[in-house]
């Protein structure tokens, strides 16, 4: 193509100020991409050091205290500064307004403020972790975090507190945008599933994050002023801290996984050239997960001394929350059934997601059973389970979405061969890393220990070997995406043959997303003998 240089959001204005003071949701999404990627690799370095340490049964890299600080740093960075913001703030910010035919989010300046809060919070916490860190684990359980605390608990917690406001404001922005800025004809049941699942996520962000904020504020009050709230030495109830912490942190798991489920629901129909099977079920399962997810937090405390009757109720509800998740898995598989499947990189990541998420979900059911949970509480079985959900699920979904929307975001294509290679590498590396941990946990290896009995070594060596493969799988995209920006061929507006509004406009999009406001004439994911039927009227 020899078209003259077209104006896009990338070249509409230049200079560092035009980025740091931008209110364009697409540019803010890229700012988030920078932050997210940075924290992902910081957390990844901590994880690599953990796996390096665990190759031998005795401690080699520093003291046990250093090890405690290492896994705490890994958890804090990955949960609050990568997983929670990952998909909503990047792809949510970039794609969600385009999917509904809006020119921006409802509150663009608030959106920019959210990014600054995220970065400031992240830097405060990172500073604390680099100054010496904390040894409490990412959960800050009392009284490790107050009476026995030795590290920079106050600074670390304050950083998380600040970044929480970023979460809340982002969620608020998405909720209002979805309600009020939909293009003409974009009814609720014509919304792509990614919008629905981001909406469900936003509801959790707005309703759960303030509880964490208050919990952390009380923790700070206790630690700074030395007054009793949770600490048993001062007359408090440490179990109450766990209740309040998990009231946020369990729904936070759904903050991490729901957006990924949304991404997968976009990718599977496109690469099967078929309508999404059971759209209404997928949509309402997102809402059901968000709602039931608020009622299961007690399954983190089966052995913490809560009442047995409470545990029974939480066990039952934890089984219940698995139902909508399972329905979604069946819907994705049914979508592929008799479809015309293309094995491009986004689809391979989606396959990885479905398989790994299913294993993570099924082992979650095992942990929801009271007796089994007592056997494997605080072992590597739990570690393996939640990594299957958060890394095998959420991170695979992140990469799937990144590869799917990359042509739209950058306006360039990437080498699909390398991307498929990275997806396969990540899948095998992941399984080699975390499957042995199920066995380790079942055999009784507790989590959060630097040294272990020699008979466990073989499983740890396998796990560390897998981690090195996984690291290569995660690092590869940096290279071929860099190549894509510099030398990749220009992307057409709809390279995958998708139906959503974001594919009706140019790649990369103009500053106001659409040349003219689109009108929506049909539901998403409609295919006529393999040909996409666009949602927008004029294409």
């Amino acid at each position: 193509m020899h078209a003259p240089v077209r104006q896009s959001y990338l070249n509409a204005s230049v200079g560092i100020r035009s980025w740091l003071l931008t209110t364009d949701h697409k540019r803010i999404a890229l700012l988030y991409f920078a932050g997210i990627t940075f924290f992902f690799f910081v957390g990844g370095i901590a994880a690599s050091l953990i796996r390096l340490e665990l190759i031998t049964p005795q401690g080699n890299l520093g003291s046990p205290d250093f090890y405690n600080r290492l896994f705490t740093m890994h958890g804090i960075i990955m949960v609050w500064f990568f997983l929670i913001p990952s998909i909503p703030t990047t792809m949510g910010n970039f794609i969600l307004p385009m999917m509904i035919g809006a020119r921006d989010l409802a509150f663009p300046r608030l959106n920019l403020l959210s990014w600054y809060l995220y970065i400031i919070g992240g830097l405060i916490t990172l500073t604390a972790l680099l100054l010496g860190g904390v040894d409490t684990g990412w959960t800050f359980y009392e009284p490790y975090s107050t009476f026995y605390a030795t590290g920079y608990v106050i600074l670390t917690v304050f950083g998380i507190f600040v970044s929480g406001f970023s979460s809340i404001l982002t969620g608020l922005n998405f909720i209002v945008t979805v309600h009020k800025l939909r293009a003409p004809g974009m009814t609720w049941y014509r919304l792509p599933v990614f919008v629905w699942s981001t909406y469900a996520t936003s509801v959790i962000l707005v309703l759960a994050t303030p509880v964490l904020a208050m919990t952390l504020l009380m923790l700070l009050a206790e630690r700074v002023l030395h007054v009793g709230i949770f600490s048993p030495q001062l007359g408090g109830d440490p179990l109450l801290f766990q209740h309040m912490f998990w009231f946020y942190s369990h729904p936070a798991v759904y903050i991490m996984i729901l957006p990924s489920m949304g991404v997968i629901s976009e990718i599977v129909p496109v690469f099967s050239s078929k309508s999404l099977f059971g759209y209404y079920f997928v949509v309402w399962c997102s809402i059901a997960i968000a709602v039931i997810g608020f009622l299961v937090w007690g399954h983190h405390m089966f052995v913490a001394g809560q009442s047995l009757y409470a545990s029974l109720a939480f066990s039952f509800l934890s089984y219940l929350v698995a139902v909508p998740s399972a329905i979604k898995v069946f819907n994705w598989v049914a979508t592929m059934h008799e479809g015309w499947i293309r094995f491009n990189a986004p689809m391979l990541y989606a396959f990885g997601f479905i398989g790994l998420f299913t294993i993570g979900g099924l082992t979650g059911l095992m942990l929801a059973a009271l007796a089994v949970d007592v056997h494997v509480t605080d072992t590597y079985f739990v570690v393996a389970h939640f990594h299957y959900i958060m890394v095998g699920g959420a991170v695979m979904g992140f990469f799937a979405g990144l590869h799917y929307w990359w042509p739209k975001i950058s306006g360039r294509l990437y080498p699909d061969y390398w991307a498929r290679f990275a997806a396969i590498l990540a899948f095998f590396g992941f399984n080699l890393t975390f499957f042995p941990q199920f066995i380790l946990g079942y055999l009784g290896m507790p989590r959060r220990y630097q040294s272990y009995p020699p008979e466990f070594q073989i499983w740890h060596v396998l796990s560390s070997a897998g981690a090195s493969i996984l690291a290569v799988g995660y690092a590869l995209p940096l290279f071929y995406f860099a190549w894509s920006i510099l030398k990749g061929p220009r992307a057409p507006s709809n390279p995958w043959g998708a139906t959503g509004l974001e594919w009706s406009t140019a790649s990369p999009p103009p500053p106001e997303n659409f040349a003219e406001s689109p009108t929506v004439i049909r539901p998403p994911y409609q295919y006529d003998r393999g040909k996409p039927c666009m949602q927008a009227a004029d294409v």
Partner: protein
Amino acid sequence: MSERALGIQYSTPAQEREAVTLGMWAFLATEVLFFGALIAAYLNYRIWFGSDFIAAARMTKVVLGTANTAVLLTSSACMAMAVTTFDAGSKRAPVLWLIATALLGLAFVVIKGTEWFLEYREHLVPALNFDVARYGGVAEIFFVFYFCATGLHALHLLIGICLVSWVAIRIGRGSLVPGGSTTRLIGLYWHFVDIVWIFLFPLIYLAGRNG
């Protein structure tokens, strides 16, 4: 807010008005959960500690608390009048009502401050001068919650006073015109802060006082 040029994301002023209104309600939903967590923890201890905790609650100054409730409810009535008169197109009345709202808010803070000062003199302030030997550890936990809850509420009120004063100045200068959302949204916030007190007042001052 709608007094500025319409943002590119909106097609009509009505769309923007609906969006900012929903935004404020979503923000208040967050605030409900924020205070809700504190109140839930407070109730947990009230049930757990029972009579010792309730005995500590009886040391609060119920007369001042009740006076403050009256002051705050009156301020909310003034706020409602400010919004109504503003939307009706009046120029002077909303400014006066807003000044009354801010002054009543300030009166609340002054009364609250007096209360805190009296409690300081009785050695009831945890982390500063709490007399554990005299009042006991359970009472200390009660007063931790008391100061957290009333302190956070007062902070919200101070923010509200600043916002109300800002709106009063802008209406006085004529830079806010009826049909905009700013006054109404600040009103919503003010009523929310009032409602938080409506929950805190009986939970802290009243429940168990005659028991």
